[in-house]
């Protein structure tokens, strides 16, 4: 892909923020939606419209603060498209979720410019806070992990993630496969190229970036097979599931944060279904409500049946579980298998219809009879 190479020296973050503020200055976008630093040091999605204020943006922060950026964009453009031009900073899994939400009419991409960011991995939000409290910058750990490899405390879903580089975006801020002190801003669509050209950048091609990405993928492919292999063994049959969901208190927070769970009110929470919850939630004064395994299986497996085909493997369900259950093992595994039988990759392209919205004349013979 063609793009512009930027010198960053030690100041990667400042270079990116300058680039963003130039976007605002040149009136190419009216506002930028990006992770901005808050008083507690954490990042949260926020708006920047004033070119001078872009210093608070922290694009490379290796954490997803609670709700995915895709959900934020969906909340804005759900009813009608934005008139003002909005640049959005998105991690690869954010973009995949965004594309899926476009397919379900939850997001309208008019006037939205997608600025993707390489993502070698993110920390669980609580771990991220601990690193901050210890005083060092999590971003450094990411670069260190990137160069030297080796084990990291990234989230499981990030360790086995198959596209650290965004596929579908106008621009892409890339650091994977680029030597230290440099940054590569790729233009992926005409809009992207027009941006870079307007900013006076010379466009060039970087081969070693693709090689580096490919190498990472090969390594992660094996890890992914191993990870899902273990998950499969662990989740085998009701005993396996019983021990897996032992601590689950059925708070349904995994559903609340899931970017592609777009229903206003989850069917499994609504009165159209709740008859089951009463029947299966044992009420006893000693323990309060105890969710039976049936209720948990109905909720989790039911939700998987609805959404696994569009699961973008972002792993936020695992991060949102107060009981620290490794939920991505379950949802990731089911999603991988279902997406394999339909040969469907969520977030690959906006035109590709999700499996639940269409059907083919000849298919799935093996499931008949």
């Amino acid at each position, binding site marked *: 892909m063609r793009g512009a190479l930027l010198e960053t020296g030690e100041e990667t973050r400042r270079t990116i923020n300058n680039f963003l503020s130039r976007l605002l200055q040149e009136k190419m976008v009216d506002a930028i939606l990006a992770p901005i630093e808050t008083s507690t040091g954490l990042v949260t999605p926020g708006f920047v419209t004033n070119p001078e204020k872009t210093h608070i943006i922290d694009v490379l922060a290796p954490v997803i603060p609670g709700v995915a950026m895709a959900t934020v964009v969906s909340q804005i453009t*759900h009813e009608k498209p934005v008139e003002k031009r909005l640049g959005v900073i998105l991690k690869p899994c954010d973009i995949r979720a965004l594309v899926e939400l476009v397919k*379900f009419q939850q997001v309208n991409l008019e006037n939205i410019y997608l600025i993707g960011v390489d993502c070698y991995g993110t920390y669980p939000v609580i771990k991220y806070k601990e690193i901050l409290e210890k005083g060092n910058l999590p971003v450094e750990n990411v670069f260190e992990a990137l160069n030297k490899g080796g084990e990291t405390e990234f989230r499981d879903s990030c360790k086995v993630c198959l596209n650290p580089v965004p596929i579908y975006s106008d621009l892409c801020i890339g650091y994977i496969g680029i030597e230290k002190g440099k940054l590569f801003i790729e233009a992926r669509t005409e809009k992207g190229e027009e941006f870079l050209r307007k900013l006076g950048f010379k466009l060039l091609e970087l081969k070693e970036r693709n090689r580096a990405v490919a190498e990472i993928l090969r390594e992660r492919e094996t890890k992914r097979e191993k990870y899902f292999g273990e998950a499969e063994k662990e989740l085998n049959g009701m005993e396996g599931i019983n021990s897996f969901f032992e601590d689950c208190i059925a708070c349904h927070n995994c559903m609340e944060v899931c970017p592609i769970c777009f229903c*206003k009110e989850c069917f499994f929470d*609504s009165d*159209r279904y709740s008859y089951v919850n009463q029947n299966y939630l044992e009420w006893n004064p000693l323990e309060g409500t105890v969710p039976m395994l049936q209720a948990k299986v109905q909720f989790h497996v039911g939700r998987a049946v609805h959404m696994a085909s569009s699961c973008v493997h972002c792993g936020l369900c695992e991060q949102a579980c107060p009981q620290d259950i490794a939920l991505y093992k379950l949802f990731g595994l089911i999603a991988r298998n279902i997406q394999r039988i339909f040969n469907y990759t969520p977030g690959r392209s906006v035109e590709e219809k999700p499996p639940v919205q269409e059907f083919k004349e000849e298919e799935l013979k093996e499931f008949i009879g």
Partner: protein
Amino acid sequence: MIKVNERIGVFICHCGLNIAGTVNVEKVAEEISKCKGVVHAEHYIFMCSDPGQEKVRQTIKEKKLDGVIVAACSPDLHEHTFRSAAASAGLNPYRVEIANIREWVAWPHEGKGEEATEKAIKIIDAAIEKLRDNMALLPVEVPVTKKVLVIGGGIAGIQAALDCADAGLDVYLVERGQSIGGKMAQLSETFPTLDCPQCIETPKMTAVAQHPKIHLYAYSEIEDVNGYVGNFKVKIKRKPTFVDWDKCTGCRECMKVCPVKVPSEYERGIADRKAIYISFPQAVPNKAVIDAENCIRMKYGKGCGLCAKNCPSKAITFEGNGSIEEVKVGAIIVATGFDVMGVNSFGEYGYGKYKDVLDALQFERLLAPAGPTSGKVLRPSDGREPKEVVFVQCVGSRDPDNWHPYCSKICCMYIAKQAMLYKHAVPDGQAYVFYIDIRADGKGYEEFVHRAMTEDGVIYLRGKVGKIVEEGDKLRVYGVDTLTGRNVVIDADLVVLATAVEPSKGIDDLARKLRIQLDQDGWLSEAHLKLRPLESLTSGIFIAGAAQYIKDITDTVSQASGAAAKAIALLSRDKLEKEPIVATVDEEVCVGCGNCVSICTYNAVELDPELKVARVNEGLCEGCGACAATCPSGAIQLINNTKKQIFEMITALTRRD
């Protein structure tokens, strides 16, 4: 939510011994009476009998029932009976549910009384759970436009249009070609009556032209169809004729002077027509059209224009790009007819390279008195009168490996006719017919073929023709006679192939526009081959004539009248009643994801742009429930088949006592 004062009555039928013989009806009645909300449980010898129905009516009144369960035979049989009985007693018909304990319980489990009784109770239990949430409904009333659209101007379309118009309905008859008349107008004579087809069809064509109720759209095509039974909105595209039809008198002066000669579709290529043409003498409408591809003036925008100069009524304008008109109709009759395969598909018979190898429709034109040779049989190559003519049956038909597996049905008869007419035209000529089996099953058909064999000395050879090769000015036909077991080589002057009949070209995208199905060979699929051959699966759209499957004129006309009768019956009512089991949307729950919109086959669901909420068009919705299954948040549900009802039925069925 539990309704407080539910009053359900359950009636268990013995059906003589059919049910009572296996299921212990007393125990069932006793068990069911204990169910919540059941205030009356009774078993009776024949519920579907008058006293049985009377018992239902009586109990509804006496015990003020607000729901009835009849546990008897399959709902397909008596659901309607018991619903109307309840309705006559003042209970809404949709507050009645049928539990099938005969076909599904008593009969298949004869000899297993205990389990059968257990199963019967469970099934009735489930029916009760479903009934609890059933809403009282009234049929959805849909307005009716008392107009009919007939697609295809062949004899089928003409007959259907006339019947509907005579019944007082406005008819829009749309014909793709310049004139109506279809294939029948191209024939020389009909079998077995040897009538002149133009003589018997022209009166009907003029009747169409003059009928006040029939609006003829010749040289027009169907652009787009939507809407539903009783309320179809159809866009009809009038193709540009470049001639002002109001002024054109059909005097054909223009055709005399036009320098361009192009193979005529009507004459099937064995004679030419001009760039400006009227298909055939008796054409209706008797108005000229310009074929823009071949007319010099139209192609280059200038030059020629002889026809305009020569036209007495100055009707030729060379301008216009047609128009699109939208009409509203209540019913549609598809009568698009058939096509005949050309000889160029068959390599073994020369790929159409040999001029004297014709398909049967071309030979019809040779035999036709008004044809290019005014009835004289002359060879297209050198104009000589052929003394030896070979007819080959089943070319491309009954040939599953290469072409069509089906039998084209009408060739046996028209080949016999053509052989006979050839003999009348060339008394000393000799006709040979290679056939596999002669199928002459119509009235007077067998006698007709027998006459061809005996009186006209046509030699029938049972066998197929392997190859035809041009030998000098002769056509060497290599065939076989399986009855004598010997190869047969005939040096013929002329060969006529009875090529296979196919659905008319363009039927597949018309079918897509109408959202009706085609079978694997491309014929229109009927609702039921035996019992509903004239209706398509989409209600309000009827099919007639060869478009449904190949048939001769007799059957075509009777089907046309049948389809017309169906349309007339449908449109005889002012309001159409539709099954009220349709989808409904809870706007507070719907998030506007569009799953239901893209999954619905009938396009009955749209997304309301501002509110981003699904809307169901009750007229279009057929109640299949596919949307309910694909909606993640359960916002769209099928009336009386809500998710809650199904869940409760499942719980009832799986309850272990």
